[in-house]
């Protein structure tokens, strides 16, 4: 009755009866995560006496609602969670946060994670962070490849059993960028040596990929791993929980850090950051809620009940056990994707370049030159 009761009340009795304040928070929750998240929120409700409505929705949809409300100047959302790579895009729609008021809470957060939320002032707080690690079949490989050379050797020994999330979507960029970064590239230019080296390596890997790689996304590739069709791939922590529930981990399937390239190793920062829309109806209470959500108790409960990683330095990654060991080891090598408003288009260019190399077997240098040209043209045309 959270939204209904106040709405009816204010409709029928006008301003005479003060409606109880109701906060609305939009989070990209899977339906299965809803009950646990709601119970964490109810702690806040008990503490402050403010009711909170939790709206589960996809990141793209939350972004759209946010943009629409910002345009209209008024809205229903008090706190929104956005995908970490779209923060730049929506920075104008969220209000800068009062760092003085947040004070204590901010100090516990990892500085790198916090930095990713700054766009002309602090606008976003890390709600949950995530990154990919290498997931491999211990029975088939004994130990995980630690360098690119070893990875290639493994591929040659297990042709058709290497998995890459090759569908035309953001997940492909998340598989590609670690290689670009590990080769010294920045991810923002197609004409760097690092980009060339990364794509050349992928071209070398291409003949050994699983045939379904062209349509693989997170769920599909995890299933292929569970069925034993692939011996390694990159994925997010949820995959390990999936394997654990099927009894495959931590025994047969394990996690490991990504292989090192010529310039070290890195992995892509994922997860969600929360912000307060400019059009939020209750900005003061929204800040309170945001503070609660990054607070120790909430983050600890989210870790325990949903397996989310926290940006707080006083909360370990996973439970320290074997399951997420590979993820924990990469904690300091997590890099955010390029923080720019046109990131989605840049990402799309990378995806197409990667697919051209991986599935059409085109020459990496050619592909990169074409991508660079297209990107220059696009940026010239852009407003």
């Amino acid at each position, binding site marked *: *009755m*959270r*939204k*209904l009761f106040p*709405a009816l009340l204010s409709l029928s009795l006008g301003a005479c009866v003060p409606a109880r304040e109701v906060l*609305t928070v*939009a989070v990209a929750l*899977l*339906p*299965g995560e*809803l*009950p646990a998240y*709601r119970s964490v929120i109810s702690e806040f409700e008990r503490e402050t006496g403010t009711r909170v*409505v*939790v*709206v*589960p*929705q*996809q990141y793209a*949809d*939350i972004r*759209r*609602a946010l*943009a*629409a*409300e910002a*345009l*209209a100047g*008024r809205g*229903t*959302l008090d706190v929104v969670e956005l995908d970490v790579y779209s923060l730049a895009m929506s920075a104008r729609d969220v209000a800068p946060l009062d760092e003085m008021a947040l004070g204590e809470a901010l100090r516990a957060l990892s500085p790198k994670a916090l930095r990713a939320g700054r766009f002309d002032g602090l606008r976003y707080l890390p709600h949950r962070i995530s990154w990919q690690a290498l997931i491999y079949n211990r029975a088939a490989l004994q130990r995980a490849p630690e360098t690119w050379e070893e990875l290639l050797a493994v591929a040659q020994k297990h042709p058709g059993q290497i998995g890459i999330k090759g569908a035309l979507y953001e997940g492909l960029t998340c598989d590609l960028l670690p290689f670009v970064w590990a080769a010294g590239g920045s991810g923002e230019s197609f004409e760097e040596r690092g980009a060339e080296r990364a794509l050349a390596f992928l071209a070398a890997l291409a003949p050994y990929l699983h045939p379904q790689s062209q349509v693989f996304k997170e769920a599909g590739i995890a299933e292929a791993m569970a069925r034993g069709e692939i011996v390694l791939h990159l994925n997010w922590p949820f995959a390990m929980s999936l394997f654990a529930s099927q009894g495959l981990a931590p025994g047969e399937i394990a996690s490991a850090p990504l292989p090192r390239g010529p310039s070290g190793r890195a992995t892509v920062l994922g997860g969600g950051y929360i912000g307060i829309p400019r059009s939020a109806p209750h900005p003061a209470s929204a800040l309170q809620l945001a503070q609660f959500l990054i607070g120790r108790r909430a983050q600890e409960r989210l870790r325990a009940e949903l397996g989310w990683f926290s940006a707080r330095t006083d909360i370990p990654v996973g439970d320290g056990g074997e399951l997420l060991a590979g993820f924990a080891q990469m904690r300091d090598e997590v890099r955010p994707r390029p923080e720019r408003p046109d990131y989605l288009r840049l990402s799309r260019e990378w995806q197409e370049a990667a697919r051209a190399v991986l599935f059409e077997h085109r020459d990496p240098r050619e592909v990169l030159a074409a991508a660079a040209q297209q990107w220059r043209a696009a940026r010239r045309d852009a407003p």
Partner: protein
Amino acid sequence: MKRGPILLAAGLVVVAADLLPLALVAKQAFTPEAESFAWPPTWIPATLTADNFRALRSAAELEYGFFLSGTVALCSALGTLSLALPAAWVSARHPRLDRPLDALMVVARAFPSIALAVPLAALFVRAGLYNHPAGLGLWFAHTLLGLPFAFLVLRTGFASVPRELEEAALLDGATPLGAFWRVSLPLARSSVAAAAVLVFLVSWDEFAYALLLQVTNRPLPPLLYYLAAFGHPGMASAMAVVMLVPALAIIALLEPALRAGVLAGSGR
């Protein structure tokens, strides 16, 4: 040899097969999630539980979804009727005007929702109607959607009201509007009721516009889609059952009209 019982039995088998998927969803709603994951799947529930409904109740904003679905359906039904009633009456009485109006209905029926929803979303954002908490934008879209259905049903209804009664009223000195209000409308009562319920149902069930125009303030169909597309069978099936109940009630309301063939020709 009595054919009757055999035919009835055959008919029951057909209907059972036809409705089997719905029965299975109902089963999933009342069995624990673990059972829904079992392989091979169970056909008859082993354990019954209300856990899925409890989880649904505590987690999803059901009351708001009902409120929004109901409000939008009611308002678009009112909007549709107020627009379609006079137009249908005109169509029934003036064949020359009927042809272009009917053609317009054909165009409206043939129009793909997505072709409208994308520009509507853009326009509504500018007008502040996108993702409206009371579903204002959706009222407009659903009124548009319901017009062809209401028009056809009402036209059939008015066509069956004998002209002579209206003309008699006119000869007695009544205005055309008065004749319409006091003679035609009461006689077409059942069609109006059927049209109202039909349009309400169309709006209540509608998915495409709801999905595109309401993103965080969602009526029931997009909410169910979210639960089913991204979640596990338990909560989604419970939600499906929850949505079934009012829909079945409305069908029961409509059944006499269905039998009377009032809805024939509306294509719905």
